[in-house]
């Protein structure tokens, strides 16, 4: 563990302890179908990411690949606490939240492969996309920025008297940004119907939380903003659902902003290229062995909710089929048309003109590929000539 202080707070590492659920817990209201649906979204998240790893290794993923391995419960359980009309803003490790809100595997795969018919038409990377109709707003890379944006989204709900709630995710690292502070403070003052979920997964890129904050717990920051805060085991999907649902209900009742801290663990590096050299030996393996959210939840479905092995394995099978089909469809998509790069910066004018030395050219890709003489890529032929 990165610090001694963390250990006792992460008692969940000691084993899949069942979170206390009293009869008041919102999750007791879930039907057995809904409980299985939670499992479906978690499994879909993991299987889809595993497929992306395969495509990444085949160099079909154009940019970096970001995993949420071990955080599936946190993403799925929190998004599941929202109604269809509500809006959330995901982070790079909230693939599960987006799937719950209606993003499809085909869209995700097309995004990663930079296809022309991807949701952003090849303009943005990975899961950086949104759809206000389905209720999710794409993030940008500067962290913390979505907190003020979601303050504004929920301000509009309040101004229009709409019965809608917003949810925004921030990592442990983003809590250090000015935008996080300004956004949560603004929303708290305006009593916007907003839930701020701090996903404490132990690391911001390579930086452990001990180097991110001197605070003992992120949830304590709620006190400074004059808002309620609650912390839960982020690897227990029903505990995540419960804590988020309580915050969502408060927001819906007009009680303003809540801060939720979810304790989880990032089992992969920041992105696929990151070998996690900074992680203490055995830490990742211990979380995998003792506190995997899917293992925990499937055991619970069997033991506590009488789900059969068949029910669970048929979901696994359905997910595999869904991901296979989506991969086939996404792989058939073509790349974007180069000239589309100049369209849609503004509503008016609708497009930029190509610069004069590009006029009449359909593409610059051929000229851009590493031509002979491109420095280190072709030093030998240069040296001999």
């Amino acid at each position, binding site marked *: 563990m990165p610090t001694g202080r963390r250990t006792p707070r992460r008692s969940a590492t000691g084993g899949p302890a069942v979170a206390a659920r009293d009869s008041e817990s919102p999750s007791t209201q879930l039907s057995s179908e809904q409980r299985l649906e939670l499992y479906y979204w978690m499994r879909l998240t993991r299987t889809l990411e595993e497929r992306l790893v395969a495509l990444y290794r085949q160099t079909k993923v154009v940019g970096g690949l970001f995993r949420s391995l071990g955080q599936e419960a946190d993403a799925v359980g929190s998004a599941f606490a929202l109604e269809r009309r509500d809006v959330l803003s995901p982070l790079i490790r909230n693939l599960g939240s987006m799937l719950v809100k209606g993003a499809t595997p085909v869209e995700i795969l097309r995004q990663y492969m930079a296809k022309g018919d991807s949701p952003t038409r090849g303009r943005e990377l990975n899961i950086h996309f949104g759809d206000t109709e389905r209720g999710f*707003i794409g993030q940008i890379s500067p962290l913390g920025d979505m907190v*003020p944006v979601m303050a504004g*989204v929920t301000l509009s709900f309040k*101004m229009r008297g709409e019965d809608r709630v917003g949810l925004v995710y921030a990592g442990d690292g983003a809590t250090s940004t000015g935008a996080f502070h300004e956004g949560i403070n603004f929303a708290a003052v305006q009593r916007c119907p907003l839930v701020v979920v701090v996903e404490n997964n132990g690391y911001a890129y390579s930086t452990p939380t001990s180097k991110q904050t001197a605070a003992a717990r992120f949830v304590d920051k709620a006190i400074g903003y004059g808002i309620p805060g609650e912390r839960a085991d982020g690897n227990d999907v029903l505990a995540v659902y419960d804590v988020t649902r309580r915050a969502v209900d408060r927001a819906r009742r007009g009680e303003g902003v809540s801060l939720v801290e979810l304790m989880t663990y990032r089992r992969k590096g920041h992105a696929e290229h990151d070998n996690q050299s900074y992680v203490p030996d055995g830490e990742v393996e211990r979380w995998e062995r003792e506190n995997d959210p899917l293992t925990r939840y499937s055991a619970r479905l069997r033991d506590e909710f009488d789900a059969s092995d068949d029910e669970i394995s048929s979901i696994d099978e359905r997910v595999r089929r869904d991901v296979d089909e989506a991969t086939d469809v996404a792989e058939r998509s073509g790349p974007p048309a180069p000239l589309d790069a100049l369209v849609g910066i503004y509503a008016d*004018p609708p497009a930029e003109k190509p610069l004069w030395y590009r006029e009449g050219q359909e593409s610059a890709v051929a000229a851009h590929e590493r031509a002979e003489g491109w420095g280190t890529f072709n030093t030998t032929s240069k040296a001999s000539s």
Partner: protein
Amino acid sequence: MAEITYLEAIREALIEEMERDVNVFCLGEDIGRYGGAFKVTDGLIDRFGEARVLDTPISEVGIVGAAAGAAHMGMRPIVEMQFIDFIANAYDMLTNYVATSRYRALLPCPMVVRGPSGGYVRGGPFHSQNPEAGFIHTPGLKVVYPATAEDAKGLMKAAVRDDDCVLFFEHKYLYRRVKAEMPAGDHVVPIGKARVARGGRDLSIITYAATVWKALEAAATLEKEDGLSVEVVDLRSLAPLDDEAIQATARKTNRVLVVHEDTRTGGIAGEITARINETSFAWLDAPVLRVTAHDVPLPYAPQLEDFVLPQTTDIVRAARTLAAY
């Protein structure tokens, strides 16, 4: 109709747009009960209530971010920067988030960020800036900077109605110094169109905001003392630039002086010069020259500020050099 000031013209535009569209609302620091540091929003809270005239915490990132979020959902927020100098705090939100929103996410972000800008007022380094150049450099933002009361009103109305983010720079030296009678009816000045403030044959001065008035003063002096016929073009919009108007005046007079109050290096005068060079080099009888602020933070003392900023006499002197070239 009575004449109103540049400041009142802005307020009139805000009122008319808020009356026209319930989605339009204002947010900023001290803009409600207090009416804003310069009183631009004075009385708006009485007319439209606290829900549409929001007093916010001191949070430029929070305010601009919240405006963006509300804009995504169909609102038309108008953000006040108490002084435009503080827009630097929101630079990330404007350039990384707002400016890219439509392009990267197909997500409209129609909003206005407005605020008192510019010097000649002894405001010192943090109440006098002209930070337009950094934003002109950012695709996805529009930038306007009116010189007259009519344009202040007409461009504000266009900015509120625009489907993208418009940065609306208000020159605080002009707030109460220039007045005009407003054109009747729904007065909207299109974004991206320059205005010939004074016609002329011998040389052109291309400028915007407070220095339009200095250029007009200089043109009168040059006519009287040198017999020169000077054309003054008021850009009004800085992004997008009115290429047609720039090209037309360059090809008409064949001598161009670009004047701005912003500092020299990386200022928009360099961009205008480059465009003239690319499109109209063969028409030129002289190199394009610039009169700008010196490349220093803006100092407080009158003796220092006046030395740093472009003055009418500087414009006269540069124009004579250009005419004699």
